[in-house]
């Protein structure tokens, strides 16, 4: 069963009164719950938020399923989202994703590597076309101006970092 932490509950309560209507708090509360649930929005997350926010689960689910940044399936510790639209597509975003996936041991996008570290998604324009190709891991700052070599090294570095902890 998923339950928000005490701080998480406090956060949700304050968000509920932040906007003109409490429905407007759904997105921020989903982010919070997703973070506390290891990076994805499970049916239990929706049920729990529904109870805490006193909003029908269907309304929360419709938001969770409409927007791409809520993962409806488990993802690895590093959800690597590579932009492949237009400029990034022209400048190597697609090749770079394939190379990173090979290094990480993922056969296809959406699949998590056996070590549980990596999940890859090809995503749509992230608004950083002057530094193409680029990517975003989870909701962290963009990693820009990549080459295939740099991107593959990034996978190795993240793996080493994860082992170190």
């Amino acid at each position: 069963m998923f339950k928000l932490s005490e701080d998480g509950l406090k956060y949700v309560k304050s968000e509920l009164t932040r906007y003109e209507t409490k429905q407007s708090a759904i997105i921020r509360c989903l982010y919070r719950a997703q973070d506390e649930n290891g990076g994805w929005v499970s049916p239990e997350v929706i049920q729990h938020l529904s109870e805490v926010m006193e909003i029908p689960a269907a309304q929360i689910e419709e938001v969770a399923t409409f927007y791409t940044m809520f993962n409806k399936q488990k993802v690895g510790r590093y959800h690597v989202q590579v932009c492949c639209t237009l400029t990034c597509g022209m400048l190597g975003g697609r090749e770079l994703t394939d190379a990173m996936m090979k290094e990480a041991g993922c056969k296809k996008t959406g699949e998590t590597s056996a070590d549980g570290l990596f999940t890859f998604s090809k995503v749509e324009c992230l608004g950083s076309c002057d530094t193409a190709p680029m990517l975003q891991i989870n909701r962290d700052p963009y990693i820009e101006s990549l080459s295939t070599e740099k991107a593959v090294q990034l996978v190795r570095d993240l793996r080493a970092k994860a082992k170190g902890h």
Partner: protein
Amino acid sequence: MAESKYLTEHYGKPEYCTLDGYKKLGGYQVLEKALKMQPQQIIDEVKASGLRGRGGAGFATGVKWGFLPNNGEPRYLLCNADESEPGTFKDRLMMERAPHQLIEGMIISAFAIKAKKAYIYIRGEYTGPAAILEKAIAEAKAAGYLGKNILGSGFDLDLDLYIGAGAYICGEETGMISSLEGLKGQPKLKPPFPAVQGYLRKPTIVNNVETLAAVTYIIRDGAAGYRKYGTEKSAGTKLFSISGNVNKPGTYEVPLGYKLMDLINIECGGMKPGRKLKAVVPGGSSAPVITAEECERATLDYECLAQMGTMLGSGAIIVIDDSNCMVDVLSTITHFYHHESCGQCTPCREGTGWMEKIVHGIVHGEGKPGDIDLLLKIADQMKGRTICALSDAAALPVLSFVTKFRDEFEYFIREKKSKVRGGQIYAQMHA
């Protein structure tokens, strides 16, 4: 003419991000002036300046403000910082380098339209700019630029940041309003337009980041001062996001009416060595593509690009050189629109899927005779038949790519390989 740093004058200075730094460089002085004016005077000044929406549609800002009903209902100002038109990244720069510039423009604009509550809707992926804005809003509140009785004027304004979660359609103003209401970001039928019935069915003005930032400069310099830049119908400067096969991609501010080729050759340092210009998408992925020959005649203003059958859009210029296969480039665009269609309207939901399937078929060497005509027919039937403009935005690139580079599409279908990329198909091109 050359690059004109008007809105971006201080973007190179890191302190411009902070309240103190912004104030030292003249920040919030225009707000003091504006709060002593009558709201209608500000609206008139913005109307006279000829400012047009910088998000893509290019609608006259002052005219939009004039649509607000005079019925005493609460009204809202909503800043569109969703920036998701492929190729566009200028708003991100503005929020990162000058958050207070946006906030000052918003306070002045809210005062003009008599809104007491304003939101900035920022796309969910922009976590960095969102953190910068949160900090700047808190600074402005602490300094009395937001909240009750701003600078003793009797004007109250509450400003908050709302975060999206990944959906291109939320950049469409009624889709954005749905999202702000805590719903799926699906657009609503117009009329009623948001200025009459928007957020929570109350009058709402939705303006782009750059548009709102420009308002401060119009009040500072007056409409006539603002009009020193640009052309009669395209007044002022504009920030252009340039990406693709140029030596120095980036954001450049130039007066409207600037020559496209000057921007490419002077500001962006021209094409990569040994490469030739093939095509440009001049206003974000929704704008019809223009050929190298057309680029020679193009000036960056609303009227010239409209005459050429394309648009200035969000000012996102994607430069494509002769190493690119146009079928392959279009395949990323058709994928994008299929992914981003919200699914409400059948012509868009189905049409974007069909177009993606056909273009991807061609680029994988599985094109069939008749595909080109089928694409043109589908695209044509998607125009003007849906709640919002996404369907048209998906159709226009297909129509223009296929019409202007028909030989590449015909070759790919006939020979089962690219005319450009050494006779490859998708799997080889991207190995």
